[in-house]
């Protein structure tokens, strides 16, 4: 933007004035804690017994974690959970978003109603589904037996519990993908569709060759946000399974919380948190870089 020279300084003042509160807050709330976290991760230390002091542990905490089979189990579970959730949510969300971008009577009403699961507190959602999936008096098993299927012990076996958790997360967050997808689909200029219709392209062709590619950046953002949110999922499992049966539905986040706030192994929890942070930030960086490449194209 062409600007007279004397206005430059106002611009700089504005940048500094408008950004500094946010930067200061985030430095205090993110940079400082993370530096401390890395520091703790190299020490034997318990927040419960500060009198015992801190002793240098070197890579001890990391070594212990990476050779512990229990931790690998948490990572494998988290990975399976993320994969199931993101796949189901993207497919369902794009489908629902495509249906909702059409203009029809009662669309606003249906649209808002379908957003309801996303508005529910994750803890309440966890309890609600735990209530509905109860093997003995839950409504889901009642409906299943009603159509002649056997009862399922949803929450007392590892595999059904994984699927149940993915179904609950998908229930909550498909509306979010649908919201972003609708927004993206409606942003595509009408003239492109008209041109496609004149050319006699089939609806399926238009959807896969025009709609999807043109809304790819937004859908990709949706994917990033869900991928990372699923990866750090914690609230849902507290209320839904409590990590059980056994420790089979503990995510990595859940394990960090348990190590830090039930066992008070602060050093070890810090090390696990650092590993979790590195994975998430690494993922985010790769994905965001890919996104900006998409934007340039």
């Amino acid at each position: 933007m062409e600007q007279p020279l004397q206005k430059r300084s106002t611009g700089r003042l504005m940048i500094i004035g408008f950004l500094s509160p946010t930067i200061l807050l985030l430095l205090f709330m993110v940079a400082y804690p993370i530096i401390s976290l890395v520091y703790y991760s190299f020490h034997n230390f318990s927040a419960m017994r500060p009198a015992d002091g801190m002793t240098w542990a070197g890579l001890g905490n990391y070594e212990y974690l990476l050779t512990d089979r229990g931790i690998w189990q948490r990572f494998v579970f988290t990975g399976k959970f993320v994969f199931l959730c993101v796949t189901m949510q993207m497919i369902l969300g794009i489908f629902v978003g495509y249906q909702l971008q059409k203009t029809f009577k009662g669309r606003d009403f249906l649209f808002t109603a379908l957003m309801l699961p996303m508005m529910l507190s994750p803890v309440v959602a966890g309890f609600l589904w735990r209530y509905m999936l109860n093997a003995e008096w839950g409504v889901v098993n009642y409906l299943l037996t009603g159509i002649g299927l056997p009862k399922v012990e949803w929450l007392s076996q590892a595999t059904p519990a994984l699927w149940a958790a993915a179904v609950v997360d998908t229930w909550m967050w498909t509306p979010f993908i649908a919201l972003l997808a609708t927004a993206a689909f409606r942003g595509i200029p009408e003239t492109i569709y008209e041109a496609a219709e004149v050319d006699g392209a089939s609806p399926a062709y238009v959807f896969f060759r025009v709609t999807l590619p043109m809304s790819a950046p937004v859908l990709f953002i949706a994917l990033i946000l869900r991928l990372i949110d699923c990866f750090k999922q914690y609230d849902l499992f507290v209320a839904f399974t409590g990590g059980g049966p056994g420790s089979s539905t503990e995510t990595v986040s859940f394990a960090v919380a348990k190590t830090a706030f039930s066992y008070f192994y602060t050093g070890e929890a810090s090390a696990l948190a650092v590993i979790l942070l590195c994975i998430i930030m690494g993922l985010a960086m790769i994905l965001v870089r890919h996104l900006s490449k998409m934007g340039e194209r």
Partner: protein
Amino acid sequence: MSASNTGSARITRWVLFGLLVLYTIYNLGPILWLVISSLKSRADLFAMPPKLVFTPDFSGYQSVFGIGAAKDSAASIGVFRSLITSVLVSTIGTSVAVMLGTLAGYVCSRFDFRGKGDFMFFVLSTRMLPPVAVLVFYHMMFAQLGLADTRIGLILIAVFINVGLATWIMKGFFDGVPREVEQIAIVNGYSRMYAFRKLVLPMVKGGIAATAGFCFIFSWNEYAFASILTTTKAQTLPVKISTASGATGIEWTQICAAGVVLIVPVLIFFWLIRKHLLMGMTFGVLGRK
């Protein structure tokens, strides 16, 4: 329109419609069940087969609001207190986060400065941070600063978890306002600040509302931070109801009633901002006006 008249196209359309109906049942069924269960007595909750016709029982709602039969019980006074905490923390936290996000979003939309890309990523990364990771440290920091179990501490958290998202969404809305608005104002002798306050801000009112809606949902439903950083005095409603499940087993009626109470303000918010939601959610990456 010729394509849609052929037989296969009609079948496709009915299949898609059927799938949407199925999805709607999956989506809204549990919500309906939540509302129904919130009105059931303890005995009706566990009835098998589940009852669809029953005498409504308002004890869950009474204990959330601390009225009626539950008026003087210590447990429900605690629940009502936590509702007040939730309202205060979410509204104040959302207001501050939206304010900061609006300022930062405007600068990111209008100016090119060194490190802008890094700043934008840093801001977004706060949204991606796993709460438990920083909580290991906050737990100690809050105790040292006297912020543990206080509403002020939770407001700080509410601002922090939302400011990144607010910045990104607001940047998208500002990108949609033509730069000519400020150019014309400056040519006419107004200051840049005046143009921002009196011309640009009113144009993104809807965007501010949508951003506030999102921030409100996230702080209203926030659980991880509140559950670790509060113990008694400053518990929010989601934390309170999760700890209520203890001595006498899980208080399902109370949880369902609290769930309904928690969803109402968000639903109202959503309905009011529904038109703006769709515009803001493309984060400006589609590059349209």
